[in-house]
C-alpha cells in the first residue's frame, strides 16, 4: 500500500480534511521554498554583513558556503532517518531547529557565531525539506507532491536574492532571518498534524530505486553555474558598481521573471525533456558569457544576459529535478540526493569562483589606480586642487583596501571655486566610471568559468550511446 493511500485513512470529514491538507501542504511548500531560498537569500546582504561584522570578502563567503555545505552533507543521511521514523515528527523537529537557528542568525554578533548558526540552520533545513517531501507526497499524491516540492524549491532559489536584497535595504541583513522564524513556526503544527496513523507504513517498507546519476550531476554543475550568476552578479552590482541592495534586488528580479516564461514557451514549442534541459544549459552559459562581456555598467545591459539565465533556470532545474525524482522510490531518498547534488554544486561554484574573483579584484586594483592617476594628473583643475584631491583619493584607497573604493568622501572634501564645480563633478563621474570598468573586468573570468560549468552540465546530459539508453 502506498503512503499516499494510507494517509487518507482518517475519520475527519473529506471536505474539511481536503482544505486542511491543502493549507498544511501550502505551509510545508512555503517552508521548503524558505529553506532553499536561504541558499542564496543572504547574497545581497553579504556586502552589509562584510562591513557590520568587520570581515573580508573571502570570510563572508562562508556565510553562504557553510549553509550549502552542511545542507549538501546532511540531506542524504537525513533521508535515511525517514525510512525508520515518522516523517511528521522529524519534519517538525527539523523545521523547529531551522526556526531557532534562524533566530540565532538574526542576533549573531560576530561572523563565527553567524556561520555556526547558519550550519545549524542547514541541519534543521535538511530534515525540514526532505521530510516535507514525504509529507507532501503523503498529502497530495506522489507526482503532485513531488511537483509541489520541486516548484517550491525552484521558486525559493529564484526569488531568494531579490527578497534578501529588499529586506536588507528596507531594514537590515538581520531582518532576512527574522522573517523566516514565523514562517517556520507556523509550519511546525502543520507537519505534526500529518503524523502517521496506527498501521500506516514507513518508507523503510518500500522498495528502493537506483539513484539517477546523470540529472543529479547536471543539477550540481548547473547550481555551481547559477551561483556565479547570482552571487557574483550581486557582488558586482553592490560592491563593484556601488548600487544599493534595493536596486540590486530589483535588477536580479529579471531572473525569476524570465523563468516564468519558460512554461508557456515549452508548451508552445512542445519541447521534450532533453531539448529543454540542453537548451536551458546553453541559455545559462550564454547569459553568463553575456555578463562577462558587458559593454558598460548601465543596468539595462544586464537585462538580456539575466533573461537568458532566467529562461535557462526555468528550463533546467524543474525538469532535471523531476527526472531525478519522479517515480523513484522512496521519494525522500531521491529528494535527499537531489538536494545534496544541488547544494554540493553551490559549494563547488563558490569554492572555484571565490578565489578567482577575489584574486582578479586584487589584480584590478593597479590598473584602476593607474587610470585614476592619469585622469587626476590631466584634469582641468588648478594644480593645488589636484594635489588636495590626490591626497584624499589616496586616503580613500587606503581605507577601502581590498574593496572597490568609495571616492565620494575625497570629492566632498575638495573645495573648488564655483567655476570649477562642473569640472569637479565630471572628474568624479569619470573616476567612478574607471572603477566600474575595473570591477566589471575583474568579474569576467569568474563569469566565464560559470559559463563553462553550464556547458559541462549540458555535455553531461547529451546521451553518448543511444543503444545504452533505456
Amino acid at each position, binding site marked *: 500500500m502506498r503512503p499516499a493511500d494510507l494517509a487518507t485513512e482518517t475519520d475527519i470529514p473529506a471536505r474539511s480534511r481536503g482544505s486542511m491538507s491543502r493549507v498544511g501542504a501550502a505551509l510545508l511548500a512555503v517552508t521548503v521554498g524558505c529553506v532553499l531560498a536561504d541558499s542564496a537569500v543572504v547574497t545581497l546582504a553579504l556586502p552589509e554583513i562584510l562591513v557590520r561584522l568587520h570581515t573580508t570578502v573571502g570570510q563572508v563567503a562562508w556565510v553562504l558556503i557553510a549553509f550549502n555545505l552542511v545542507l549538501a552533507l546532511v540531506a542524504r543521511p537525513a533521508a535515511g532517518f525517514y525510512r525508520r521514523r515518522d516523517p511528521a515528527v522529524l519534519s517538525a523537529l527539523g523545521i523547529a531547529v531551522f526556526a531557532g537557528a534562524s533566530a540565532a542568525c538574526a542576533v549573531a554578533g560576530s561572523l563565527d557565531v553567524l556561520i555556526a548558526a547558519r550550519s545549524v540552520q542547514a541541519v534543521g533545513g535538511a530534515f525540514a525539506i526532505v521530510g516535507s517531501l514525504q509529507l507532501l507526497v503523503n498529502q497530495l499524491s506522489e507526482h503532485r507532491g513531488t511537483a509541489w516540492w520541486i516548484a517550491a524549491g525552484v521558486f525559493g532559489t529564484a526569488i531568494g536574492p531579490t527578497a534578501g536584497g529588499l529586506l536588507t535595504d528596507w531594514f537590515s541583513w538581520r531582518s532576512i532571518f527574522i522573517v523566516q522564524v514565523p514562517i517556520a513556526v507556523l509550519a511546525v503544527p502543520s507537519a505534526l498534524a500529518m503524523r502517521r496513523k496506527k498501521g500506516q507504513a514507513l518508507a523503510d517498507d518500500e522498495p528502493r530505486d537506483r539513484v539517477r546519476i546523470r540529472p543529479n550531476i547536471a543539477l550540481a554543475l548547473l547550481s555551481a553555474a547559477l551561483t556565479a550568476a547570482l552571487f557574483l552578479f550581486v557582488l558586482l552590482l553592490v560592491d563593484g558598481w556601488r548600487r544599493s541592495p534595493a536596486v540590486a534586488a530589483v535588477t536580479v528580479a529579471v531572473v525569476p521573471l524570465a523563468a516564468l516564461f519558460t512554461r508557456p514557451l515549452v508548451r508552445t514549442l512542445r519541447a521534450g525533456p532533453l531539448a529543454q534541459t540542453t537548451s536551458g544549459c546553453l541559455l545559462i*552559459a550564454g547569459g553568463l558569457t553575456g555578463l562577462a*562581456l*558587458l*559593454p558598460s555598467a548601465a543596468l539595462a545591459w544586464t537585462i538580456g544576459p539575466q533573461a537568458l539565465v532566467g529562461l535557462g533556470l526555468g528550463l533546467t532545474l524543474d525538469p532535471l529535478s523531476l527526472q531525478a525524482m519522479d517515480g523513484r522510490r522512496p521519494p525522500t531518498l531521491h529528494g535527499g540526493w537531489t538536494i545534496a547534488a544541488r547544494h554540493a554544486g553551490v559549494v563547488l561554484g563558490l569554492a572555484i569562483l571565490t578565489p578567482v574573483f577575489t584574486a582578479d579584484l586584487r589584480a584590478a586594483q593597479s590598473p584602476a589606480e593607474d587610470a585614476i592617476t592619469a585622469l587626476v594628473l590631466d584634469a*582641468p583643475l588648478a594644480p593645488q586642487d589636484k594635489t588636495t584631491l590626490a591626497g584624499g583619493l589616496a586616503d580613500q584607497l587606503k581605507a577601502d583596501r581590498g574593496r572597490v573604493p568609495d571616492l565620494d568622501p575625497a570629492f566632498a572634501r575638495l573645495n573648488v571655486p564655483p567655476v570649477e564645480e562642473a569640472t569637479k563633478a565630471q572628474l568624479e563621474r569619470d573616476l567612478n566610471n574607471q572603477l566600474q570598468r575595473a570591477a566589471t*573586468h575583474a568579474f569576467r573570468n569568474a563569469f566565464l568559468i560559470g559559463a563553462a560549468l553550464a556547458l559541462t552540465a549540458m555535455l553531461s546530459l547529451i546521451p553518448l550511446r543511444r543503444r545504452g539508453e533505456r
Partner: protein
Amino acid sequence: MTRLSGRLRAAALPALAVALVGGVLGLQLANGGGHYVPLRPTDSCVSRPVNSVATGIDALTEELVLVGLDDAACQLGMSREAFTLQIAQPGARTDAQINALRTGLITAVGTLKADGKLPKASQLVREAVDQSDLSSFRKAAIRAIPDVLIDKTLTTDDVLRRTINDLDLRMLLGNLSDRHAMTVQVDAAVTKAVMERLADDLH
C-alpha cells in the same frame, strides 16, 4: 512526415536558445562588450600635450612637473601613473627614483625652452616674489630692480636648472600634503639659485 515534424519540434527550442544567445552576445559585442576595461596609461616615452588651467608660475610648474614625470618614468621603463603612485607613497624613495625625477625635471626645462614656453626671468622673479614668504623690505628691494637688468643677468632655464639641482626632492615629496612647507622649500631653492647665478657672474 511525423518523424520530420518530431525532429523539427525537438530542434525548435535549442534553435531558439542559440538564436537568443547569439542575439544578446552579438548586441553586446557590437556595443563594445569585451572592451569595457579601465583606461590604459599611455607610453611615458611619447610626448603628450599638457593643458593647464592655471596661469603664470603655477602653469609653468605644472607643465614642468608633468613633462618631468613622463621623462622620469620613461627612464625607469614604467608609466607616468605608476611612477607618480610610487613616489607619492609615504615612506622612503629609492635613489633611482629621486635621480630619475631630477633628471626628468631638468630635461623638462630643456623641452619647455625648446618649445619657447619658458617666461622671461623677470616675469618669473616677480611672480616668485609675490608668492614668496619674504619680508616686505626684501620684496620691495627686488621689485625695484628693472626687468631689463634681471633679464640681462638671469636666464629662466638656468635658474630652474639650478633650483632643481639644489632641491631636496625627498623632502619635497614628503611635504606633498603641506603646501606651505613646499612653498618655503621651493622659495629657498629659487633664492639660492638666483644668488649663486649672480655670484657666478661677479666672478
